[in-house]
């Protein structure tokens, strides 16, 4: 079965399914109720495809016997399931307390500058995905990160350079994730910035809360917060970037 996924790239999902199915059967037999195998099955699909595709979620739903919407809802709860394609290396840098006390902010700034990405964004060449994550339980070696879930400790600018160089040279110890579909600039579902504003055409769009052609929603919110009595908190530039409502660097936004 060849399918065109939501991102419009044809690929052979039948091969994926043939590979995952025996493992899934084994997983389902291991639990008193087969739905318990849902997370492990989604992990299995992601191991093969590099992400949890809509086809994978539909297949998993059929296996454990729940509606597709339930699987989508469940998958969306967990940060490690990528529901859009990601790069071959997912770099997850800790931003929590112990790492921040030991210089994580500087490390994150360096990653952003060097890779020209923001939080939850993939590099222009589609190879590296970057995310700032919560405590990874390696506070004794702060600041820390994971590369495809393998720990890298005691980060410094020099160490970051070494990691990125090793990835470029293909000598990094962790294997690349499979890449079945080219990734867009973010994998955060619902936060992909549209290329053009649909708001002007009166189309309801979650990125256009005012429905006034304000594609990023930014102007609407900024107008609201011009009077601080109306709203005490307003999104900062960093947040707009993080939520995909503004790109940190100019460039084509895919999806």
């Amino acid at each position, binding site marked *: 079965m060849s399918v065109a996924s939501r991102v419009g790239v044809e690929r052979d999902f039948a091969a994926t399914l043939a590979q995952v199915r025996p493992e899934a059967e084994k997983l389902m037999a291991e639990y008193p109720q087969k739905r*318990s195998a849902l997370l492990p099955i989604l*992990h299995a699909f992601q191991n093969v495809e590099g992400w949890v595709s809509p086809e994978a979620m539909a297949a998993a739903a059929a296996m454990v016997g729940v509606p597709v919407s339930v699987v989508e809802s469940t998958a969306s709860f967990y940060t490690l399931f990528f529901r859009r394609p990601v790069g071959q290396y997912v770099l997850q840098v800790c931003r929590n307390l112990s790492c921040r006390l030991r210089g994580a902010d500087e490390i994150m700034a360096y990653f952003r500058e060097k890779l020209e990405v923001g939080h939850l964004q993939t590099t222009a060449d589609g190879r590296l995905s970057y995310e700032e994550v919560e*405590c*990874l*339980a390696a506070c*004794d070696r702060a600041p820390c990160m994971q590369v495809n879930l*393998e720990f890298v400790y005691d980060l410094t600018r020099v160490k970051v350079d070494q990691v990125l160089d090793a990835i470029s040279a293909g000598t990094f110890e962790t294997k690349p994730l499979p890449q079945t579909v080219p990734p867009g600039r973010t994998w955060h579902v619902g936060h992909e910035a549209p290329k053009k504003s649909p708001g002007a055409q009166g189309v309801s769009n979650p990125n256009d809360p005012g429905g006034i052609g304000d594609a990023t929603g930014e102007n609407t919110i900024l107008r609201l917060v011009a009077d601080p009595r109306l709203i005490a908190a307003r999104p900062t530039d960093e947040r707009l970037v993080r939520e995909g409502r503004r790109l940190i660097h100019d460039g084509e936004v895919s999806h």
Partner: protein
Amino acid sequence: MPTIKVLTDGIGEVDLRDCDVYRGRGGYEQWKRVVTKMQPSDVVDLVSKSNLRGRGGAGFPTGRKWGFLPNNGRPRYMVCNSDEAEPGTFKDRMLIEETPHQVIEGMLIGTYAIGAKRAFIYIRGEFKRGYEIFTKALAEARAAGFVGERLFGTEHGIEITVHRGAGAYICGEETALLNSLEGKRGEPRLKPPFPAIKGLYGEPTVVNNVETLAFLPYILKNGPEWFAQIGPPKSPGLKVVSVSGHVKKPGNFEVPLGTTLRELLELAGGPLEGRKIIAVQPGGGSSACLFEEHLDLSYDFDTMAANGTMLGSGAVVFFDDTTDFVKAAHALVRFFAHESCGQCTPCREGGHWLELTLERMLHGDGLDSDIDMLLAVSRQLTGINLCPLGDSIEPFLASVVKRFESQFRGYVKAEAVA
């Protein structure tokens, strides 16, 4: 007070991942004794006598937790909670990765004690390496006849399933964990009923932390008195404490409860060169901050509670005089806002609101009214949620706003809003 190595003994010296190495040091002997010579109620009695309290965060007496299971003839489950994600905590990851067999032995003993035949271990999704190490160790234990059917020639059998999460702090909350283990969103359940009555698949279930279970073989081996007489009587025993932050040698230190915070600081190499410790968060991201005048307090469940904070998961973060407490508070508030499951409005909206406010202050747009608002909002969102996540925002935030108000005022750039 020095460290006393029991759970951490041998780590970094021998390969405790190897089943034979673990057995060579007396491993699985207590499990054999339990299955062949003891009744489940004998084990419960011993653990009750040891006064072992849960090492995951709540500090609930383990023997009493086991005693809540009803005798209703239904299947029972033991679940080991290894979804360690409390900011500052890194002890369970070490135990899973470095000494998986003592965790397996503890799980087996606990499972037997509660009369269950099935056990699960829920390992945090980010611990991919730990999951692989644990899975391999379990296969070795099964091959050696410690897990499975007809154990040691008896009619007893116990199966263990390793389950990997997928990234969600809230799954460390026991009812959220059970939902996640059932293949659902990791949203906490309304309690009561508690898991002991209606847990996994609606059946009686005990959820115990990794470290709690890992102590069981040693309590059986050395006797409950051995454990009970270490440290304060109501809060006895050893604890693996994760020390991080502004110290020279961060790490895990296994110490008797009752060790002082200052002694923990010394174990971790003391403050960085030329710096002075001015605050300490003693029990993970959810706990209120203590300050330099508290450093000689006894580190145990009851003393921490009496001083308005908690021992929690045993994550101690030290802060020196270079700390920006607005940034520190922002890191933790952002964490709780990010990890809120979204079921309860106060936690979902309140956490987000506080995060945006702190973010705005850090970006130079602080209002005079923000200080009071941080305190008011965090207070108001507390105590009215299904689970403790929302309630975890206030303790640290309020304690540092009150203590370091001048730092927060330093970010104020505008007059109060009328």
